[in-house]
């Protein structure tokens, strides 16, 4: 029995209004690859942030026991000193610096006042060899692909004398070959260096390929830990742990909503990444939605859902967009959000603070922003009318605020979401694309948002609801599309949808190749 390197005991972490982690326990043995799996928002990243000191000691309850002693990390430096290194999902490399410079950022080689560049590059080359990267350490980061950049991140971690390496979704931006190479490197490091690793991933085929143990996190609690040595772990088994949750009547019912003709139809829609022009973020997607219908698009983060929605909404994302878009049976070309709004489309963003609202402005001005025409004559704004409109939506959506003159930045998440919805409802669209409409808001506010969605459907609007919460998609939709790795991988009426068969669609596409290879190789 190997010794336990890390033990996290009864970790509880509370954010204002939300319990992100509830009495979480995690045990990692020396020299193992331990996978953390769970839905978005289950608490995996929060747990790792607690471990690495990003949430310092004192902001959570519970103990971290590492290498036999109780640790109190106050920042990342503290945890790195102990050999705990986290590699974040978004790479933290600086494009216009060399590999060597990046590897020793904040850990510069040489004397206290003077960097020894010869030593820096020699050391860098040594670690690069360890991760199997043959490029010179004097190459600029921008000149190597994302796959190699991920290897540089690992080399950088090794250079910090890492004993416990945490990889947060390391393959999310890699293609199949690069992902495979990375996973093999992990196995090699485990074998040759005895490295202990924690990997967070949504790709279950990868998890079952690489992990010795798998811990399932759900709703801020650890549900179970599966041991690959003692039992054969199928992906279906993991999924069962991830989603095993009751759907209660958290969702208001829609009654007597007539589903009419098709309002929006998207065919063979393909979009490329604006920076990595060869990467398809939306691949040959066809969807349609009818009046009075709520269509759910389920997919994990990074599946291409937001990219799909924004590219439809006046090409506000992506390049090389191809495919046809029909609104009310007519083919249209929308070149800007302005045109999209004029054609009766609305995109309610998932990122209300980043690109949905102007936080420094009042509820009033935010509400009318997408449809200033309706409250102005010859560009002169009728402020009385504006006030009345804002007041009307405040009452309709039950936004809790003393006055519509209140700055949006001072509202709670749920109320901000209502203002965002009000803004797009006032634009009077036929088709609303709601991107994660209930992200980061409390249960009560969620229910109210669901009621608003039902009212919209009742009024004959088409609603496309993008969500990564399975119960929400199943509970609210008439019909569900399942999206994974830029493609639509399944479509089903909500009446036939269960959490298991939706997850099966996702596994079905991403899973077959790597898992099959794995078994073939070992046989």
């Amino acid at each position, binding site marked *: 029995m190997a010794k336990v390197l890390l033990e996290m005991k009864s970790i509880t972490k509370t954010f204002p209004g939300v319990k992100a982690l509830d009495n979480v326990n995690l045990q990692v043995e020396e020299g193992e690859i331990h996978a953390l799996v769970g839905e978005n928002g289950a608490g995996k990243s929060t747990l790792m942030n607690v471990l690495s000191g990003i949430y310092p000691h004192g902001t959570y309850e519970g103990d971290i026991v590492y290498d036999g002693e109780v640790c109190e990390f106050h920042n990342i430096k503290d945890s790195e000193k102990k050999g705990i290194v986290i590699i974040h999902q978004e790479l933290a490399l600086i494009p216009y610096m060399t590999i060597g410079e990046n590897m020793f950022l904040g850990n510069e080689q040489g004397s206290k006042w003077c960097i020894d560049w010869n030593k820096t590059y020699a050391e860098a080359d040594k670690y690069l060899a360890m991760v199997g990267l043959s490029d010179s350490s004097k190459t600029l980061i921008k000149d190597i692909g994302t796959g190699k950049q991920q290897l540089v991140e690992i080399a950088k971690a090794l250079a910090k004398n890492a004993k416990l390496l945490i990889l947060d979704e390391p393959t999310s931006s890699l293609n199949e070959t690069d992902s495979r190479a990375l996973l093999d490197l992990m196995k090699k490091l485990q074998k040759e260096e005895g490295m202990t690793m924690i990997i967070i991933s949504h790709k279950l085929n990868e998890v079952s390929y690489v992990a010795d143990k798998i811990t399932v996190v759900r709703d801020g609690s650890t549900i179970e830990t599966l041991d690959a040595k003692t039992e054969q772990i199928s992906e279906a088994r993991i999924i069962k742990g991830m989603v095993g949750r009751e759907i209660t009547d958290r969702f208001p019912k829609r009654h007597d909503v007539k589903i009419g003709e098709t309002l929006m139809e998207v065919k063979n829609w393909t979009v490329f990444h604006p920076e990595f022009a060869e990467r398809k973020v939306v691949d040959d997607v066809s969807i349609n939605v009818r009046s009075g219908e709520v269509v759910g698009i389920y997919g994990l983060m990074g599946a291409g859902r937001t990219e799909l929605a924004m590219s439809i909404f006046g090409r506000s994302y992506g390049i090389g967009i191809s495919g046809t878009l029909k609104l009310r049976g007519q083919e249209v070309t929308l070149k800007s959000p302005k045109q999209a*709004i004029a054609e009766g489309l609305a995109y309610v963003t998932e990122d209300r603070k980043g690109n949905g609202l102007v936080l*420094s402005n009042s509820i009033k001005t935010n509400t009318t922003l997408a449809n200033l025409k309706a409250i102005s004559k010859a560009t002169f704004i009728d402020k009385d009318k504006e006030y009345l409109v804002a007041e009307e939506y405040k009452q309709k959506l039950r936004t809790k605020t003393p006055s519509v003159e209140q700055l949006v*930045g001072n509202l709670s998440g749920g109320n901000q979401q209502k203002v965002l919805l009000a803004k797009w409802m006032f634009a009077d669209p036929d088709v609303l694309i709601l991107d994660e409409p209930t992200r980061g808001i409390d249960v009560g506010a969620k229910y109210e948002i669901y009621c608003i969605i039902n009212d919209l459907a009742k009024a004959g609007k088409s609603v496309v609801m993008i969500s990564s919460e399975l119960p929400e998609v199943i509970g609210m939709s008439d019909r569900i599309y399942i999206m994974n790795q830029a493609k639509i991988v399944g479509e089903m009426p909500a009446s036939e949808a269960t959490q298991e068969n939706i997850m099966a669609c996702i596994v079905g596409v991403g899973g077959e190749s790597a898992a099959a290879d794995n078994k073939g190789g070992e046989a």
Partner: protein
Amino acid sequence: MNKFSIKDVLKKNVMAIALFVIYVFFTVMTGGNMFTSSNVSSLIDQNAYVFILGVGMLMCMLTGGNIDLSVGSFVCFMGAVAGVFSVIKHVNTPLTLFLVLLVGIIYGAILGFLIAYLRIPPWIATLAGYLAFRGLGTQILITVSETSAISNFPDSFLKIFSGKIFESAYGTVNIPCIVLGILGSAAVLVLNITSRQKKVKKGYQADPMWFVIVKSLLIVAVIMVIFVQLSLDGGLPVVVLWIIAVLVIYGIITEKTTIGRHFMTVGGNAETARLSGINNKLIMFAAYLNMAVLTVLAALIVTARFGSANAFAGQNFELDAISACIVGGVSAYGGSGTVVGMVIGAALIGVINQGMSLMSIDQDWIKIVKGLVLLAAVVFEILSKKGNKRQ
């Protein structure tokens, strides 16, 4: 509901109160010299360009704290161009004005294109103009004139941008000026009271009547004091009409139109603006085109005031305009700011300038004080925002 409170009113108008206090301070320190009609008149005359350029800078800053550094040099260059057309080439005044405006529009369009569509950072694009136009303006003046200055502008030109309306002798009361002052005061009174009445009629919350009257009377008092002083100094300066026109037009644009709302939104959150159907690039383009046009007006006013175009015209004007905005509470990050605020900021700096000069304090010390005032204004803005968040 937001209740009416004196504290809020004082908080909102802290800069206006500071301006009043500082003015009184300098009036006392100079033994009343500050308050003579000729000094009141010259305060306005000297700072006319700051009000005009400040409005243009305000529009730029609203789009996200963007500034235009080329303003001062462009004033010099446009003065030279106007001189060449009007004095050297003897082009008649209307055509001169048209040509000068055209040059301004061309520059503004190029600058706007570079910033909005090629996405060159504004301070770099305008730094190029800052250097180039100073050089170009000076070269033109050296080439066409031995004294490297162009004077002898025709009367028809000077009269449009300088001098007084219905000029009368110093010390006598100028009736047209007083009449205009009374008309302006009456307009303020009527507008304030009717707008309150309208609010009450529609059932919105309105300030109490006594407050509206007190506020209006204070504004009327300020207007009347200024106009009486001006009338004693020979009459209403022409620039005052230009200033009022520009301030009123842009005040309306920023407060009451969708155009102003678009500027604020782009500065408040550019991505939100774009996804709400606002053409961000067009707004940026418009901001810099507008700045160039207002710079032309400022150049004409400055040239007419001195009666000559010279190589030193417009020095540091860009900094004066930016300071006026910052001191006037225009956000250095974009998204908020008002014409009234900018005017108060400009006046505050102007008063400090004049007051310290009248006290014969050294220019270097005036610079130090102005620098500190600027810094204090920004610190104040940021601290008061933090305070708001905590509530």
